[in-house]
């Protein structure tokens, strides 16, 4: 692999099916494992991507997750056509959530999603426009 041409994979995250959320993350985990990334890197990508997937299902009716694997970094781009994030600063603070109550009864909606993504990734870029959608770019850099 050279740095200019990453391995790329694309996944559809279905918005109508909360129970299947996480399937793209499981696929990504398998791919990274087969390439030979270390367990800590795979864990960080898995956590970040799973939270992002859950967010897309809860808030945006699904979307697309693209994975780019470079020799020195893993980049996940999640694009949705949801309502957008009104206040990114607020959304980034732990405990703040706009998820409906039925989501809380499933063990989510605690306002941990974006903070978890930030904590487990090396870089998180949020590009969101109200009424148009949100694009999350998550970068994880393997430590060895």
């Amino acid at each position, binding site marked *: 692999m050279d740095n200019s041409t990453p391995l790329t994979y694309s996944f559809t995250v279905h918005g109508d099916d909360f129970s299947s959320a996480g*399937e793209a993350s*499981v696929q990504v985990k398998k791919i990274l494992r087969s390439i030979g990334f270390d367990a800590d890197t795979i864990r960080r990508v898995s956590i970040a991507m799973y939270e992002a997937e859950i967010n897309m299902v809860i808030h945006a009716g699904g979307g697309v997750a693209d994975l780019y694997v470079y020799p020195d970094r893993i980049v996940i781009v999640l694009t949705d056509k949801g309502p957008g994030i009104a206040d990114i600063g607020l959304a980034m603070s732990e405990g703040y959530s706009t998820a409906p109550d039925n989501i809380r009864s499933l063990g989510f909606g605690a306002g941990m999603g974006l903070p978890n993504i930030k*904590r487990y990734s090396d870089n998180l870029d949020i590009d969101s426009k109200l009424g148009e959608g949100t694009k999350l770019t998550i970068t994880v850099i393997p430590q060895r």
Partner: protein
Amino acid sequence: MKVSDIISKCSFTLLVEADTERDITGVYTGDLLSWVMGHGEEGQCLVTIMSNVNVLAVASLLDLSCVILAENVKPDDEFIELAKEKEINVLSSSESAYTICTLLYEALK
């Protein structure tokens, strides 16, 4: 300590048998899946009262050794089928999450 060992030592019921020879590296308990996702570790068993299929996604992503459902929480058929498909050991107990943790503490000592 293997999953099969704690089943007999702590009198857990085996709901879904995947690989009960797996080693248990520790215990984590919680119902808030985002929190579990962020703090759980590979090989741990998860003690929880949550029985929706998202628990299985978390168990799969973290590579947990087993899930123990507390207080006789009954998962539905979809949960059971998905656990079989994802090869996740699922155990059950009538005890509370707290009591289960004390039983595991003794068993894993």
